[in-house]
């Protein structure tokens, strides 16, 4: 009798382990597919960038090119403009991200601690978000005129200031939620010690919310690096950036696939490296403070 029960239990266990193994297998399979869906297009982009022009648009598609050519890359780097585009994109991304994080974080902290009536706080946030989501297409011409009056046309600052209108509201909103979740008791100890507001912010609050700040910075950098519309309407030559250069391979008579693929790879690469490096901050930092235990 007891022996029988033991056997039955064992059988059940085995059954469960089979089920678990099947589940694990399915789990792995799904993740594999997901990774492939992400990786194959990227790999194909890289392959395209070293393909001979005649191997584009063949039927069936040329997956493994018969010969590898670096002519697209060579052309790219022999062109002095590429370096300038790179430098400008870096400058724009760096400043936009820097200013956004400083202003956005400070503003969010201020708003969270000002003991504003809920309605006013909601009002301010709403105005910020309204500006964030207003279709830029409509404001680029007035914005162009403003920049002309300020004599900033074709400077990286015209691009940076334009992008700040998108990024600061977003970061302020994101950080506002984070600060609201931060228990005030943490700061109260510092108040007792006689710390001033800036000291409190710098020494006590900032270290705690650092992961969120990093996450906000990373998202801002992605956006700034890839932004096209504002850049293309105020930058001409000196301030031209990579996203404009990529679009330049689409002409009125067709697309130059090879050079465009090479340029895309060159443009994406720094962001991929950055994403790999910054990934753990991203995951830790974004919670929007919305989940509470």
């Amino acid at each position: 009798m007891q022996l029988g029960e033991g056997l039955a239990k064992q059988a059940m266990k085995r059954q469960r382990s089979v089920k678990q193994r099947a589940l694990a297998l399915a789990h792995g399979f799904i993740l594999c597919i997901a990774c492939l869906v992400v990786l194959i297009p990227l790999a194909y982009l890289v392959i395209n960038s070293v393909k001979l022009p005649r191997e584009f648009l063949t039927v069936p598609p040329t997956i493994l090119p018969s010969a590898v050519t670096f002519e697209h890359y060579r052309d790219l780097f022999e062109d002095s403009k590429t370096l300038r585009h790179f430098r400008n994109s870096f400058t724009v991304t760096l400043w936009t991200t820097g200013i956004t994080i400083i202003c956005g974080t400070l503003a969010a902290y201020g708003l969270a601690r000002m003991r504003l009536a809920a309605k006013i706080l909601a009002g301010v946030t709403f105005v910020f978000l309204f500006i964030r989501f207003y279709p830029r297409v409509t404001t680029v011409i007035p914005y162009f005129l403003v920049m002309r009056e300020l004599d900033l046309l074709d400077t990286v600052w015209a691009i940076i200031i334009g992008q700040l209108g998108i990024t600061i509201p977003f970061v302020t909103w994101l950080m506002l939620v984070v600060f609201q979740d931060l228990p005030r008791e943490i700061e109260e100890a510092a108040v007792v010690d006689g710390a001033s507001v800036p000291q409190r912010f710098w020494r006590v609050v900032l270290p705690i919310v650092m992961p969120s700040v990093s996450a906000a910075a990373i998202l801002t950098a992605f956006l700034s690096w890839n932004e096209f519309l504002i850049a293309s309407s105020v930058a001409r030559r000196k301030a031209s950036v990579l996203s404009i250069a990529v679009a330049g391979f689409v002409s009125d008579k067709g697309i130059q696939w090879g050079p465009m693929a090479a340029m895309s790879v060159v443009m994406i690469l720094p962001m991929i490296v950055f994403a790999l490096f910054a990934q753990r901050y991203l995951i830790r930092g974004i919670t929007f403070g919305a989940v509470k235990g």
Partner: protein
Amino acid sequence: MILFVVPAFIIVVAVQFYPLAYSAFLSVTDWVLTESQTPKGFVGLENFAKELSDETFRRSVRNSVYITGGALALQMTLGICLAYLTMGSSWRMRAIRTLLILPMVIAPVAAGTLWRILLNSRAGLVNHVLSVIGIKGPEWLAHPDWAIVSVILLDTWQWTPFVLLVVGAAIASIPDDLLEVAAIDGASRWQTFLYVELPLLMPLLLLTLVFRMLESLLSLDSIYSLTFGGPGYSTYTLTYYIYTLGLRSFNFGAAAASSWIFMVFASLSIGLVFWYQRRDW
């Protein structure tokens, strides 16, 4: 405290206020830059009335609804599933998560062009793969309905990572003891998700949803390089329509009016998030 807010306020409001106010002024003005160098005069709400009854405007709104609706449904579902499937802090899961967020960092212009070549009905990789497994792939970019599907696929490919990222982070921050309590109470994994985690995640999911919705409605670069709004008007979205009005036809009055119509909708969506968050404030 107020000093903390001032810099951001100055940059955002000062720099954006003029363009915004100007566009509000334009929305009640008759002004086509290619017809005259100065505004032709005040027309009241005529621009709005004209847009709302314009066949192309209506069609672009319809397209936007299909595209954004489809893309959101797909990326929210996929994003949440993938977030659960990549839970954990083993190096393998971390590596997979990193890999999965890569599409997000690609410039939309580049992503659109890349998918244009992938979805090419004859020379594209997608139909080639389909034909290998015995399916005759559709005319992705040349058929009106499939073109919409193509745009949805692109948006999903590029932005599911965002959902994965946000939801993944949120799941990780749910205290373990909550889940343990649920487990001790004999709740199944599915029940735990449904009754413990989902309610906790709800505000965040709503936030992500609204954020992604507005972003997706506003996306322009990727549609421009993937389908050019075509074939015909098939993937002409509201943003694309506004873009054509504003920067190709220079019909500022109409473009501004359409933008404000969009903002009424956007405001309602943002309001919804606020209403949901109010409990916290």
